C-alpha cells in the first residue's frame, strides 16, 4: 500500500491504461496465417508441391479466401448481434436473414436455374441477398409496431415469427417443386464447393463496408452492456446505435450467405470461444472474432475437402460437428462459473 497519494494515482493510472491481453490480436493473426497456409497446402488435388498451379489459383485459393471472408463476417456479425441484444446466445441468423435468404434461393431453384443462366447476373446470390434483407426488414416492422425499441426481446420474437413464415413458404414451394430438393438442401448446408474469384469480388464491397461500420461501433456495444436506460443516461443514442449495428451486421451476413449458403454455428461458437479466452469487452471481442472467425472457417473447410476425398463433406456438417459439442461445453462452464 503506497502512502503517497500522487504515487498512488500514478500506479492506478498505469493499471487503468494498460490494456490487458494486448497480445491477443497478434496471436490470432498468427493463427489466421497458419490456417491460410494449411488451407492452401492441403486438398484433393494434392499438396502444394504436387498440385497444378491452375488448380491452386482457380479453385483452391479463392475457396480458402472465401472461407476466410465468410467466417470473419459471420463471427463479427454474430458478436455484434450479441452486443446489441445483450445475449451471448444470439447468432447472425437471429432476425430472419437465414430463412429469408433460404427462401430467395429456393425460389430461384424452383423457377429453374436453366431459364436464368442466360441472365446477365446470376440471380441466385441476388435472390438470397434480397430475401435476407427483406426478412429482416419485416422483422423490424413487426417488432417495432409492438414497441421493440425499449429492449431487444420483442425484436427477437418478431425474428422468430418471420423465420417461421419464411420457412413455411419455402416448404410450400419445395412441395410443388420436389425435383429441386437436393439442390436446395445442398445450398442450405452451406457450400464453398463452387467458390471462385467472382464470388469473392461479389461479396467484398458489402463485407468491407459492413465490417468497417461494426468495428467502428464496438465502443458503443460496451456502453450497451449496462442496459438501455443507463446507456441513454450516459449519452448514447441507443436506438440509433442498435439500428446501425443491425443493418450493418445483416448486410454482411446476407452478402456471405448469398454465395456460401447457410453455414451454421460459426456466428455463435467463435465469439464465445473468444470471450472465454480474451474477456467480454466488445472492444476486443469484435476484431478478435473477425480474425479468429476467418481462421476457424478456413480450418473447418479442410476436413470438408479431405475427409471423404475426393468427395465433399458439406461444410455446414463440419461446423455443426465441432460446434455442437463446443456449445455444450460452454453451457456447462458458464453454468458453473457465472450462474
Amino acid at each position, binding site marked *: 500500500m503506497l502512502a503517497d497519494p500522487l504515487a498512488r494515482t500514478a500506479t492506478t493510472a498505469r493499471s487503468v*491504461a494498460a490494456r490487458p491481453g494486448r497480445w491477443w490480436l497478434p496471436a490470432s493473426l498468427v493463427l489466421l496465417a497458419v490456417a491460410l497456409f494449411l488451407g492452401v497446402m492441403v486438398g484433393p488435388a494434392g499438396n502444394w508441391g504436387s498440385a497444378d498451379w491452375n488448380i491452386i489459383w482457380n479453385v483452391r485459393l479463392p475457396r480458402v479466401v472465401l472461407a476466410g471472408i465468410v467466417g470473419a463476417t459471420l463471427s463479427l456479425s454474430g458478436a455484434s448481434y450479441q452486443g446489441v441484444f445483450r445475449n451471448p446466445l444470439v447468432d447472425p441468423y437471429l432476425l430472419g436473414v437465414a430463412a429469408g435468404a433460404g427462401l430467395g434461393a429456393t425460389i430461384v431453384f424452383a423457377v429453374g436455374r436453366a431459364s436464368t443462366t442466360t441472365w446477365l447476373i446470376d440471380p441466385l446470390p441476388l435472390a438470397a441477398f434480397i430475401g435476407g434483407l427483406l426478412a429482416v426488414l419485416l422483422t423490424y416492422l413487426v417488432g417495432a409496431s409492438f414497441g421493440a425499441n425499449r429492449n431487444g426481446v420483442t425484436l427477437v420474437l418478431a425474428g422468430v415469427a418471420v423465420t417461421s413464415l419464411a420457412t413455411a413458404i419455402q416448404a410450400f414451394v419445395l412441395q410443388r417443386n420436389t425435383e429441386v430438393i437436393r439442390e436446395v438442401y445442398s445450398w442450405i448446408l452451406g457450400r464453398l464447393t463452387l467458390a471462385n474469384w467472382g464470388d469473392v469480388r461479389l461479396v467484398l464491397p458489402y463485407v468491407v463496408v459492413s465490417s468497417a461500420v461494426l468495428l467502428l461501433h464496438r*465502443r458503443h456495444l460496451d456502453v450497451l452492456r449496462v442496459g438501455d436506460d443507463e446507456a441513454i443516461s450516459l449519452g448514447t443514442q441507443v436506438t440509433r446505435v442498435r439500428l446501425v449495428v443491425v443493418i450493418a451486421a445483416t448486410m454482411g451476413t446476407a452478402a456471405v450467405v448469398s454465395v456460401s449458403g447457410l453455414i451454421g454455428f460459426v456466428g455463435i461458437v467463435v465469439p464465445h470461444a473468444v470471450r472465454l479466452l480474451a474477456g467480454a469487452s466488445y472492444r476486443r471481442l469484435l476484431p478478435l472474432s473477425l480474425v479468429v472467425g476467418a481462421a476457424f472457417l478456413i480450418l473447418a473447410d479442410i476436413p470438408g475437402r479431405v475427409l471423404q476425398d475426393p468427395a465433399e463433406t458439406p461444410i455446414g456438417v463440419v461446423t455443426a460437428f465441432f460446434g455442437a459439442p463446443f456449445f455444450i461445453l460452454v453451457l456447462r462452464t458458464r453454468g458453473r462459473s*457465472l450462474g
Partner: protein
Amino acid sequence: MSSLAFVDLSVRYGRRDAIAGFTDTVRPGEWLCLIGPNGAGKSSILRATAGLVPHGGRIEVDGSPLSLRSSRRRAELVAYVPQSPNLPDDMTGAEYVLLGRNPYIGYFGVESQHDLAMVASVLDRLDLADFARRPLGTMSGGERQRLVIARAIAQEAPILLLDEPTSALDIGHQQQALELVDRLRREHGLTVVSAMHDLTLAGLYADRLALLHQGHVVATGPAASVLRPETLSEFYGVSVSVHHEDDGTVVVVPRRTSA
C-alpha cells in the same frame, strides 16, 4: 455549480399521471431529497431529468432547457445513478468507470489520456484502486455502490441524480455511501437530487426535502418542517413519533399501533 429548475413538469405512463405540475428550483450546490410513498412519482422525476422518459413542462439547467440538448450534452450535465444499476460481472472496475467518460468521447473515437487519468484519479479518491483490473463479479455490495458513484463522478456532471441509493445496503454501507456523496458534492460543487425511502437519513443529509403524494408536492422545506407526525400520517398512512436531537437531526420513529 449549477441550478436545476423544474417548471410544471408532468410525466404520463399510458393514461396515468405519475407526476403533474411539479415546479421547483434546486439551488446550485443544494441537496434536494424527494420522499413519499411508492408510486408518488419520485423516480419519474429523476428519470425525466435523465432523459429516459418523455415529459411535459420544462427541466432547465442554469436556465436553459435540457430537452433542447443532444443526449451527449445532457450526459455532460446530468449524471444518473439508477436504483438497480447493471454491473456486468465480467467487466473490470476501470472499464466500468470509463463508461462515465462516454459523453466526452467522440462517436467514432476512443478515450484520451485525459479520460484515463480521470478514471484513475476517481478510482483512487474512492479507494477503489485495487479494483481497476478486477471484474465486478468479485466485488462486494458496498464496493459496487462506490463504483457506481465513481462512474457518476467520472462524468464530471454538475447535477447528480440518485434513485434509492441506499435501499440495498446494510446500515454501515448506507452511511458510507451517503457520507461519500456528501463529501463529493462539497468537493465538486454538485447539485444533488435523490429519492429515498429512509426518512431519517433523508433528513440527515439533504438540505431540503420535498414530500410527494400521487404526483404532487404536498410539502417542501427543511427536514424539521416536512417531517411532522401529522404530515407523515396523512400521506404515508403511518403512525410515527418524531424526535429532534440536540444537533438538529430529525429522527422519525415508527410507533406500534397494536398493544
